[in-house]
């Protein structure tokens, strides 16, 4: 009986938190609908999902590394660097698009590889490795693009990539379709593959995972590579959305991605969490910001209400168990 209760206690809260996270998102839509009729309507939801897809993509990588007790602080400038790399190699020409995409995503994977090797093989704490890497990427992005004053830096995204959010599949913007595909892929990988099992095992107890024959270092490197990949992908999507690269593009996504992951029910210490939850966290955050903008609240008020709402949501369902 106690064993069953314990098993329920171990399993239950994770799924419950995902449900709560979606509940929070729905609650914000409902509040919005009351204050602004149409907020929960098709157009508005479509826009919010579109904007949430950027946070959502970054949060996919962040979820993977947080699940093993790591963290990726290199998000802002991997994303920003990817945006700059895409426009400077694409030069606004469709013919150059495949090469530009390959280079940009390859850069994300390479940076993630360096992060992973540093963390897993050299033993650098994840905070240090990825914080240092963020600086390295910032310096390289600024230096190589001469502070985004280079001639190629003003290029637009290749036309094929521009405004892909306007193309729809069954009424859903292609960008959101991509995010849904990523959500399904990450959820399946984490929930139904040996790789996913290994990831959770490492997060729960790296030593036990190692003794169970899991190649902890290799899995760690792969997870950081995926995080770099998703940051670069988000950078590409932001350029496609905005048309051009800019400096500081990635800055909001570090804390937002971490917040989305934790609101989605993951533990920052690793071993617990799902990407479905993180996706709900991303939607909640973006819906909240959109609602606050619609309310005509000045910037300082939005910032304060944003913080207070995150706290209020977490007080409702995000509390850790008593010791």
């Amino acid at each position, binding site marked *: 009986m106690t064993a069953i209760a314990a098993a329920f206690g171990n399993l239950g809260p994770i799924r419950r938190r995902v449900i709560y996270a979606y509940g929070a998102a729905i609650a914000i839509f409902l509040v919005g609908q009351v204050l602004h009729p149409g907020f929960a309507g098709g157009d508005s939801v479509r826009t919010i999902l579109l904007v949430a897809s950027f946070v959502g993509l970054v949060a996919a990588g962040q979820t993977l590394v947080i699940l093993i007790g790591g963290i990726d*602080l290199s998000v802002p400038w991997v994303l920003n660097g990817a945006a700059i790399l895409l426009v400077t190699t694409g030069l606004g020409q469709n013919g150059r698009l495949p090469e530009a995409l390959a280079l940009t995503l390859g850069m994300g994977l390479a940076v993630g590889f360096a992060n992973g090797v*540093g963390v897993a093989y*050299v*033993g*650098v*704490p994840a*905070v*240090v*490795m990825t*914080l*240092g*890497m*963020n*600086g*390295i*990427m*910032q*310096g*390289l992005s*600024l*230096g190589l693009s*001469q*502070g985004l004053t280079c001639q190629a830096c003003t290029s637009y995204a290749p036309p094929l990539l521009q405004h892909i959010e306007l193309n729809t599949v069954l009424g859903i913007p292609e960008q959101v379709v991509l995010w849904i595909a990523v959500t399904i892929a990450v959820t399946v990988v984490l929930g139904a593959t040996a790789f996913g099992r290994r990831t959770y095992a490492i997060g729960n107890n790296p030593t036990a995972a190692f003794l169970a024959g899991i190649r902890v270092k290799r899995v760690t490197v792969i997870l950081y590579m995926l995080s770099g990949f998703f940051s670069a992908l988000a950078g590409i999507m932001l350029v496609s959305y905005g048309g051009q690269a800019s400096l500081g593009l990635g800055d909001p996504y570090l*804390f937002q991605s*971490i*917040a989305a992951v*934790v*609101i989605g029910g993951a*533990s*920052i210490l690793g071993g617990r969490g799902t990407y479905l939850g993180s996706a709900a966290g991303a939607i909640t955050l973006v819906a909240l910001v959109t609602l606050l903008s619609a309310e005509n609240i000045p*910037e*300082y*008020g*939005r*910032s*304060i*209400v*944003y*913080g*207070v709402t*995150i*706290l209020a949501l*977490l*007080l409702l369902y*995000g*509390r*850790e*168990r*008593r*010791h």
Partner: protein
Amino acid sequence: MASAEHAVPAPPGVDRGAVWRHVSLQNAPLILSLLILLGTTGLYIVFFNSNTGGLPGSFELTSLANTTLPLIFAALGQTVVVLTRGIDLSVGGMMDLSNSLAAAEMHATLGSELLWSAIIIAIGAAGGLLNGLLVVYARLQPILVTIATLSIFQGLAIAVLPQPGGAIPSAYTSVLTNPNQPTSLAYVAFVMLAWVAFRRSSFGIATFAVGNDQDAARARGIAVDRTKVLVYTLSGMLAAIAGLFLAASATAGDATTGDVYILQSIAAVVLGGISFAGGRGSGVGAVAGAFTLTLLVNVLFFAGINPLYQQFYQGLFLITAIVLGAGIARLGRVGRIGR
């Protein structure tokens, strides 16, 4: 616990060398952070000399300390929180708020300067207390609590000072960050002494105990919850003080200048050898880490590095310093086993 203060004289018959090896091993991260500072200082002197033909004097030392003081206070706040296995991302927001309040409200009278310094430090304590209560009694994860309060503090800062500006009384600047008198060095010395006092106080001992093993600390009768709340409160106060020093050296206010100190304070803590696993580290290391970061900026400047690449070298330096440090520490351990 790892601390130089425990270097008791060896009883007769005990190998003094062994005692010293033990002490140096226990303090390896602190010693490494001081060595990194020494190395960076060496680089700084070399590049300074090749640029100016002279050696850095008291003016350079004073301006170095003036520039570093805000980071020193922010890093010390971060240190006490990290020692309990937490993290405080709201330091940047609290510095914004403190900075803005000082620039908007402080008048050029002694009474106003004292009053507003006290009010701002009290606000820092209140903000930190809020963090601590949410982490301890609401049982929320520190990183998320402080992301949320960061946003709240940033919002309040912009409400207080919507546009950069305001003014800091010149008398205030001359007391806190006087460019002509080495007052800032006195603050650095005071901070180090305060650290030693903290380390020996029951609060300090409780902080380390909580970070080492929370359950064991509780079993030993340490008030774990109260200690954690106090640690966040202290961090908020130190961030507010950091904001005051920042305002004094800038002589005006800006509601966003504190934000860079979030990641900078973490970098200083890392270079100071404070463990993110909690329970290990020294405030002296954090001060050394803060100075290392400022010196590095000067080194890059004198080396004629394109400022656009500054972050690249800082990032590379951070990782290299930690990798080398870990390597040296490993060699030290191997040496001991080999004996």
